[in-house]
């Protein structure tokens, strides 16, 4: 059975190789091949899942060792896979959602002449992501980690002719690299501490080493997680990443890749459990991002950027939960899965809307679309209800649990603070999602003539848009709606299923341990307050956008709003400090290298040149003067020898 694990990765990898090297002759069939292999991977995953369910809780973990990767004295890294419940969860999520989005893309990318390559990249992403979650040691995980980074780089910049897309891709990769620095340092620390970086040995022998070391490792891992999961302070790339095609945003920047950070922290739970300070840091990062993302989400008018903000904040929830230790791990993963469903659904819905609206992304130019694209409306609506945590839907079950756990962080002030933040976040989520919903589907039509593709960078090519033409919204083709429907089902029922007598928690327990949280206030009270806060959020949004007409051009807005539109000025900070500073640094260094470093050496050379210039005057070309010098030299030599012998 465990031999199948490699196939999980191999299938999409093969697809990527074939599609990328295959050349034009695959343009007709390429997308089918890609989808097929993704589906194959999903099937294998399902088979393994079924097999796993057949076993007892303890011996479910499978292990497959392919070969030794880096066999160097005192540094052994294997290409080996480990499939336990945690990995299994991810495998199903990745391959499942992945397959759906492959299907969706068939329709969505229909008009793009580079569709084959798009599917190649998607397959590459699947392979890398599966590698990430299946690796049995941190180094191999690192390989997957960077692999998904690469895939996201390629996919964000898929429309490379748009400078904005290329820049966004570069930015994403660079910011991720900063995070990767954390991961690699963490691996080095593990190596020097434990002499290995395989999950098993490291996580078991945490008790042998000092808490300080574990804290260091934990913080480095957190840095990595921040990079990949777009947590403050490394969140700045996610918004720009929306330059990529919408399916990419749905798969990579909502459902799967961005949640890798959560996986990393949960996977390394043993380390964090033994390092409370690191946990606190994680929780703080989570809480801050939670609010940050939510606030940004409230201000954006670009539907995808708004959703990106929400993604940020939802992952903030997960990180927060993951930082809570055994009481939170399971819920973090659970929210991750449910979020995977509804956020993917939301993005696909957004894509479908843009598809119908000549790729207009500004929500202020939507309105009243519910009648024109009913399926999109319904699926999107269900996703909306799920994300705001409407009682009974997926989001409710997972998010509510996280809020409980947050209140239970410890029975002191911290519990109150983080619980409160989580609760507040729920409210804001309700607000901005309602805003999105209203602006898009309700109210009167605010449609504008199609933008001139040359001016607006965010027009997706391929779709034949004649400038100046009024949009004629229509429902998307079936290849796009079916995945949305499936995901909608997921976003409605998944949470409920998971929570049936804590099925999900017990499923994960062998990997992540589990303790029941003991919140500072009673669970029902928390649930009630959650619902209340939620309703308040919805109400405010309704008051602000549902009742009065929405201006097409955004009003100037309050200071906070304007800051939020600019990602709370974090980008400007980066630009001023890092980009400008870096440019100045490099420019001055180039100057230094040319004048100083080079100058010094050349200077010495020049001085030698001058010396020789003076010396060459002796070379007057007269044989006799040469003879004199020879003769004198001989005389001196004789004198020397005589002196030597004389002494």
């Amino acid at each position, binding site marked *: 059975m465990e031999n199948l694990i490699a196939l999980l990765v191999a299938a999409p990898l093969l697809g990527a190789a074939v599609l990328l090297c295959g050349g034009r002759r695959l343009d007709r069939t390429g997308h089918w091949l890609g989808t097929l292999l993704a589906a194959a991977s999903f099937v294998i995953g399902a088979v393994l899942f079924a097999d796993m369910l057949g076993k007892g809780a303890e011996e479910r973990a499978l292990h497959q060792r392919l070969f030794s990767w880096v066999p160097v004295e005192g540094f052994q890294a294997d290409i080996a896979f480990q499939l336990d419940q945690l990995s299994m969860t991810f495998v199903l999520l990745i391959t499942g959602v992945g397959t759906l989005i492959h299907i969706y893309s068939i329709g969505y990318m229909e008009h793009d002449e580079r569709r084959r390559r798009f599917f190649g990249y998607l397959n590459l992403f699947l392979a890398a992501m599966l590698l990430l979650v299946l690796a049995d040691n941190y180094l191999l995980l690192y390989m997957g980690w960077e692999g998904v980074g690469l895939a996201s780089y390629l996919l964000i910049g898929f429309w490379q002719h748009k400078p904005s897309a290329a820049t966004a891709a570069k930015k994403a990769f660079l910011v991720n690299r900063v995070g990767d620095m954390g991961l690699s340092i963490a691996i080095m620390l593990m190596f020097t501490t434990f002499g290995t970086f395989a999950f098993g040995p490291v996580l078991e022998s945490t008790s042998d080493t000092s808490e300080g070391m574990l804290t260091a490792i934990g913080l480095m891992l957190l840095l990595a997680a921040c990079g990949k999961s777009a947590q403050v302070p490394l969140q700045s790339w996610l918004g720009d990443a929306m330059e990529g095609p919408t399916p990419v945003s749905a798969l990579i920047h909502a459902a799967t890749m961005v949640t890798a950070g959560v996986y990393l922290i949960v996977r390394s739970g043993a380390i964090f459990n033994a390092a409370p300070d690191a946990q606190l840091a994680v929780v703080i990062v989570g809480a801050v991002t939670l609010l940050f993302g939510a606030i940004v989400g409230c201000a954006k008018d670009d539907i995808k950027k708004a959703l990106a903000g929400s993604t940020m904040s939802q992952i903030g929830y997960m990180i927060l939960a993951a930082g809570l230790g055994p009481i939170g791990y399971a819920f973090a993963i659970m929210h991750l899965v449910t979020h995977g469903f509804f956020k993917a659904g939301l993005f696909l819905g957004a894509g479908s809307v843009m598809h119908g609206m000549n790729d207009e992304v500004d929500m202020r130019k939507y309105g009243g679309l519910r009648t024109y694209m009913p399926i999109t409306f319904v699926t999107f609506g269900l996703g909306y209800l799920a994300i705001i945590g409407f009682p009974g839907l997926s989001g409710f079950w997972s998010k509510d649990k996280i809020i409980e756990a947050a209140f239970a962080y410890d029975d002191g002030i911290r519990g109150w603070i983080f619980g409160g933040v989580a609760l507040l976040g729920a409210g804001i989520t309700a607000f901005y999602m309602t805003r999105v919903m209203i602006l898009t589907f309700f109210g009167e039509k605010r449609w504008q003539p199609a933008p001139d593709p040359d001016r607006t960078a965010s027009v997706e090519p391929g779709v034949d848009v004649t400038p100046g033409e009024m949009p004629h919204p229509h429902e998307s083709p079936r290849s796009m709606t079916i995945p949305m429907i499936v995901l909608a089902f997921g976003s409605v029922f998944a949470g409920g299923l998971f929570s049936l007598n804590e099925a999900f928690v017990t499923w994960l327990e062998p990997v992540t341990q589990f303790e029941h949280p003991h919140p500072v206030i009673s669970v029902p009270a928390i649930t009630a307050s959650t619902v209340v806060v939620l309703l308040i959020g919805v109400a405010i949004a309704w008051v602000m956008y549902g009742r009065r007409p929405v201006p097409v051009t955004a009003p100037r807005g309050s200071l906070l709003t304007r800051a939020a539109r600019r990602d709370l000025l974090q980008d400007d900070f980066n630009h001023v400090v890092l980009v400008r500073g870096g440019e100045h640094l490099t420019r001055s260094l180039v100057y230094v290298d040319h004048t100083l470093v080079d100058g010094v050496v050349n200077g010495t050379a020049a001085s030698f040149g001058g010396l020789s210039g003076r010396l060459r005057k002796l070379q007057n070309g007269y044989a006799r003067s040469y003879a004199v010098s020879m003769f004198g030299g001989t*005389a001196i030599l004789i004198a020397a020898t005589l002196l030597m012998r004389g002494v």
Partner: protein
Amino acid sequence: MSTLAAYTTSAGEAVQFWVLGTIAVIGALCTILMKRAVHSALCLAGTMIILAVFYLANGAYFLGVVQIVVYTGAIMMLFLFVVMLVGVTAADSLKETLKGQRWLAAACGLGFGILLIAGIGNASVKNFNGLDAANSANGGNVEGLAALLFTKYVFAFEITGALLITAAVGAMVLTHRERTEPARTQRELSEQRVREGKHLPPLPAPGVYARHNAVDIPGLLPDGTPSELTVNRTLRRRGQIRDVSTEALNDLKALEQRSEERLGRDRDEHDRDGQEAKR
């Protein structure tokens, strides 16, 4: 020198050494100081002969003879030949052109000599144990040399043979001049002269003047100035043209003087006759 006292030569050799040695040194000095190459060559030849004598005195009979035959005989003759080629009377001025060259040379030479002599002086020269034994070993100096030459030094000997051949060939190659174009006929030459436009007639003959009839004397133009053209090109190049004008004047003076004398003598005779007639 006390260490060397063990072996001394006969008084005769001593005298010979001091006399001939002095002459040799003088000859060497003359070689480098004479203005004319010919003289230098002659002085050098003398020095070499003296050296030959010294060889003989040192028991190197074969070398002594070879010295005379090869050096003074062959090599010096070669030198003289070349000197002739370049011009016997060509005297190069000893005036130094290179700045400080002479002083440097003097300094180096002096220091060098002193060093050498000092070196020999404090070199631990071991006793001279004469060549009689070595010479008589194979029944004679020549036989001894031959024995060595064809046994121990045979390879070197062969190689010198190769060297000599190479040298001969080299010398030929260097001095041989390929005539690229056919010799020009008289007609062509005359045509060229016409083309050039000067000296349509052949060049004037050298100075057939008074009692002189030598190639190195330029003929005089009507106004009495000598004309370079009349002298052979080579001589002209070597700068071996005798200044004829002054010579001419000198000759004139001498002529007048001589005629003066003759006239004077005639007058005396005349007087004497007159006195005899009175008696």
